[in-house]
């Protein structure tokens, strides 16, 4: 990686003018106190532009606050409506910008930076391009320009259709995210995927899923190079021919598989009764079998996977009982099948979104028998009742009485994700989020667990495995 520019902490020499301005007699601590009391960024920039000494103070404060680590051109334009001020500020902060998130046109951003004579962002480590309401597909030329501008980029997210040429120019790339759960006109070209895999030895995360077509990408030429890959997200069609090799990847910790589908419901079929299940389960069971000793987590989307009661009866994972993360979502059958998982006493995350017949009793068994449970996601489980909460609280209190007084061995509280579940209204009505009775034992989260998909399933239209 390129060297980070160093900042001198010594006080720079004062002006050697015979009539030194009185304000220069203030030391830098006092100047920093003044800076902290300026009313907005516009005033700060004006202060910085007065002289080198003030510029040095301001740059120090901007840099150490980390507020401007992320370049947000739209927001900065609002804060600094004067174009000269904006150019000055970006030029000063250029060496310290670490992240860029772009939701407007990428080509416009690159052009703006060029006009400001910003040619290199040496410490930029992540670039996320996720346009909203804009059809701006970066050309090969734009990607090439980006690679020159961001030589030390580690994380790249580009969700628009791209050919993939020049992606391998990001020599230090560790993460490449190309997936968006929307229609994409075309996917990466095979030759450029081969280049990325073979020429980027630091690659740790690769997401090449395609949402609404059967992916034509293949990893057969690539998999031998992916020795540092820890997370792989791909379509089932891509996985099929390299499953054995993928499962042998030495560093692999997570595998997310998107079931390929082309939404072509026959004209004669009823949309309401159409069977959405994608009956491609061979690889799923093969992973379960081959990697049983290493599986510490799995997630399935029950809406698309053809899972029936008893599907998991003979799995090898029962011999190892290593599960820490379990997510089975959109299950329409009886809940008693879930009870067998209470033997997984190492469970930390349990996600059971959209179970149509979920009941308090089964869930309470997990609270009782899985003492390490930290995340419980029961979003969309309409059959749960408010009674569950008090009973769960009683179990947790019995396990750790007087938790607020015991500062030495406190387990973190149980996080319950409760979007549109049966007790959502009760939680909001009784304001349980701020209840002193609950706060050391249960925290209520009106979002979804980090690194899970939003919506009815932890992982959309497919499955996920976590390995030891």
């Amino acid at each position: 990686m390129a060297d980070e520019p160093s900042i001198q902490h010594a006080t720079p020499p004062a002006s050697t003018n015979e009539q030194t301005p009185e304000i220069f007699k203030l030391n830098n601590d006092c100047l920093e106190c003044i800076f902290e009391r300026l009313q907005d960024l516009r005033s700060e920039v004006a202060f910085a532009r007065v002289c080198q000494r003030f510029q040095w103070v301001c740059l120090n404060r901007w840099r150490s606050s980390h507020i401007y680590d992320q370049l947000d051109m739209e927001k900065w334009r609002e804060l600094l409506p004067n174009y000269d001020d904006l150019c000055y500020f970006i030029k000063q902060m250029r060496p310290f910008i670490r992240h860029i998130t772009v939701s407007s046109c990428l080509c416009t951003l690159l052009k703006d930076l060029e006009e400001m004579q910003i040619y290199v962002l040496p410490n930029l480590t992540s670039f996320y391009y996720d346009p909203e309401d804009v059809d701006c597909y970066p050309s090969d030329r734009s990607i090439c320009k980006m690679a020159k501008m961001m030589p030390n980029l580690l994380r790249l997210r580009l969700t628009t259709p791209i050919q993939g040429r020049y992606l391998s120019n990001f020599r230090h790339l560790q993460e490449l995210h190309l997936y968006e759960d929307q229609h994409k006109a075309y996917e990466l070209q095979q030759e450029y995927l081969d280049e990325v895999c073979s020429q980027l030895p630091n690659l740790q995360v690769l997401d090449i899923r395609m949402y609404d077509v059967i992916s034509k990408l293949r990893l057969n030429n690539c998999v031998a190079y992916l020795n540092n890959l820890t997370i792989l997200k791909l379509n089932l069609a891509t996985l099929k021919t390299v499953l054995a090799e993928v499962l042998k990847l030495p560093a692999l910790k997570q595998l997310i598989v998107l079931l390929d589908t082309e939404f072509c419901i026959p004209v004669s079929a009823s949309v309401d009764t159409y069977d959405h299940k994608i009956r491609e389960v061979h690889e799923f069971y093969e992973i379960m079998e081959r990697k049983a000793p290493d599986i510490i987590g799995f997630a399935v989307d029950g809406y698309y996977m053809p899972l029936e009661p008893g599907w998991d009866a003979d799995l090898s994972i029962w011999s190892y009982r290593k599960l820490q993360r379990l997510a089975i979502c959109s299950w329409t059958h009886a809940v008693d099948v879930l009870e067998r998982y209470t033997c997984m006493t190492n469970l930390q995350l349990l996600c059971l979104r959209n179970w149509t017949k979920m009941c308090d009793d089964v869930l309470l068994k997990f609270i009782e028998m899985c003492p390490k449970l930290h995340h419980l996601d029961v979003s969309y489980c309409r059959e749960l009742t408010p009674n569950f909460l008090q009973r769960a609280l009683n179990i947790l209190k019995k396990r750790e009485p007087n938790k607020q007084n015991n500062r030495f061995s406190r387990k973190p509280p149980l996080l319950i994700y409760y979007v549109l579940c049966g007790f959502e209204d009760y939680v909001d009505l009784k304001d349980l989020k701020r209840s002193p009775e609950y706060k050391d034992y249960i925290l209520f989260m009106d979002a979804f667990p980090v690194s899970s998909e939003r919506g009815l399933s932890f992982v959309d239209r497919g499955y996920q495995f976590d390995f030891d």
Partner: protein
Amino acid sequence: MSHQPEVLEMRTSDGVLFNVSLKLAQQMGLTHNWLQTEHGELRSSDDDDANIMPLDRVSSEIFKLVLSWCHAIQGIQRSADEKTRLQQDRDVFDNIIRESNASDATIFELIMAADYLNIEGLLEAGTQHVADVINSCDSVEAIRARFNIMCDSEMDN
């Protein structure tokens, strides 16, 4: 058994001696340090200089203003609300510089004295005063003109 005196002798950089009540002096963080590290217990001795706290970076003229500020703060009912307290400090500061017809040089020396003596309220009030002046300027040139700063040639590049 020795006891803490009620009056602290303090000598400014120009050699002027001030007798400051301990209660007032305790508004200055520097005196805490001095009392704890230099003189755990003040004792009578032939060398009276040992009991005099030196203020090497504050002139008598500025120290008088500092004491005026400390007196005024001591005399008002302090609000529990932080925002109101800040405003009280500002008001006292504005009164002092108005009554003394303080120039920019005096104001800056007062800020530096507050920094040296570790008087947080005075430092905040002084620096807020200067920040307000800068905020009221509508351009870089206006700030330079206000504080008589010449443009660095490198700033134009």
